[in-house]
């Protein structure tokens, strides 16, 4: 049984089809990268896996650890182990970051039949993970994603991922808006999470990110379909030639 298996997926917004018969299989422990030009449907795919209500699936299936992902609500998908690191994390004014993380963590623990953490255990876990990614106490006191720079938002997304320990991480353009230093911090944060039981799907325009996080498989997505798959050399080829051959 594959870890994630997408078969003949057709999906879009309203009547507008964006994903047009996509197939993708990811095994446990693998890191896959999807590259593609603007408008090819990469971000749509990540939103559909996470369950964004704006998208409709017309046909096809997504199995995650053998479970029918499409029949689950977004929160059930998250608690089953799916995590989407957003390209543009939503700002939640008035919702404190620390309290938000505590709610998210304890909801997941409850879902998995584990004991909820008390305030002391939670703070200890929070501090340990935060220090590694350069997240300050001051940042945790702010409202979720409010008043953060582009780089800080991506660090907080990575931090949430490390904190919630999902099995399957979708990284939607993690490198956009990051300078070299921040890219290094975020990539290090992701690399330490690479483990045999965890898989990743990275979505990116550029090969740059792949120099920091080496993928096992690279896919090229054009017009709602995966048109070619290969190893890292495919990304290098794209960097040189662009997407022209695949349009």
């Amino acid at each position, binding site marked *: 049984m594959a870890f994630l298996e997408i078969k003949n997926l057709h999906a879009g917004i309203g009547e507008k089809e964006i994903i047009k018969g996509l197939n993708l299989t990811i095994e446990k422990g693998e890191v896959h990268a999807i590259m593609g030009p603007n408008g090819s449907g990469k971000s749509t795919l990540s939103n559909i896996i996470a369950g964004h209500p704006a998208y409709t699936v017309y046909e096809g299936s997504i199995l995650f650890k053998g479970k029918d992902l499409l029949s689950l609500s977004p*929160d059930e998908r*998250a608690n089953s182990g799916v995590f989407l690191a957003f390209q543009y994390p939503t700002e939640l004014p008035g919702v404190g970051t620390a309290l938000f993380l505590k709610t998210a963590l304890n909801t997941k623990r409850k879902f998995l039949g584990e004991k909820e953490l008390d305030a002391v255990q939670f703070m200890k876990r929070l501090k340990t993970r935060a220090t590694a990614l350069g997240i300050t106490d001051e940042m945790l006191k702010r409202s979720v994603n409010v008043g953060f720079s582009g780089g800080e938002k991506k660090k907080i997304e990575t931090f*949430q991922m490390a904190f919630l320990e999902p099995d399957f991480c979708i990284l939607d353009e993690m490198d956009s808006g990051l300078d070299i230093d921040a890219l290094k911090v975020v990539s290090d944060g992701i690399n330490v999470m690479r483990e045999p039981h965890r898989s990743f799907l990275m979505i990116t325009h550029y090969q740059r990110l792949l120099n920091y996080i080496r993928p096992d498989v690279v896919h090229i997505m054009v017009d709602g379909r995966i048109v070619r798959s290969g190893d890292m050399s495919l990304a290098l080829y794209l960097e040189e030639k662009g997407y022209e051959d695949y349009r």
Partner: protein
Amino acid sequence: MKITGNIGFIRKNNVLSPLDLTGGELSFSVDQDETIQIYCLHLIGSLNIKVQLQKEGARCSLNCVYLSHQKTRKNLSFEVIHDEKQTSSEQIVRGILLDQSSMNFVGTIRIPSNSQKCVGTQNHRAVLLSDEASVSAIPELEIYADDVQCSHGSAVGPLDENALFYLQSRGIDKKHATQILLKAFLTDLMPNEIQTVIDEWMAEYV
């Protein structure tokens, strides 16, 4: 929870005391350099609050949270009269509506021609959690003086779909996510005594 009536508080000279809203009609006059802050939790019926800023330097702040469910119909009216120059007022109204409930809000700011250098603001926002709930918000600004600062704004709509999705994508179910966002929407508005009742209401009805 049993809803028995509306709940009010007034802060005057930095002392917070309960305000009886049973009659539904209240009026206040504010003296020279005096400030009053009124807080109400509007749960049933009609509520009309009128404030006259009688002397120079008088200030008032009118704050209301209304929570509506089932088929309740409510009316809220805030009326501020700037009798003297250099007086200032603010009106802040936040509402949550469920089911087939409806709300009619009228906010008046009146500034006669001799009351120069006054400041009057009004802001109304409401979240509709049902397609059948409705709000009418009418700002009535009667301004006859020409050297004043006045503003009003109103926004009514459902909760932000992306904000809900963000919380859900972190494992928080839709009901809990909705409560978190509503609590944030009303944050730091009301004294603790009222906030506790708001929390109870949300736990029961949302």
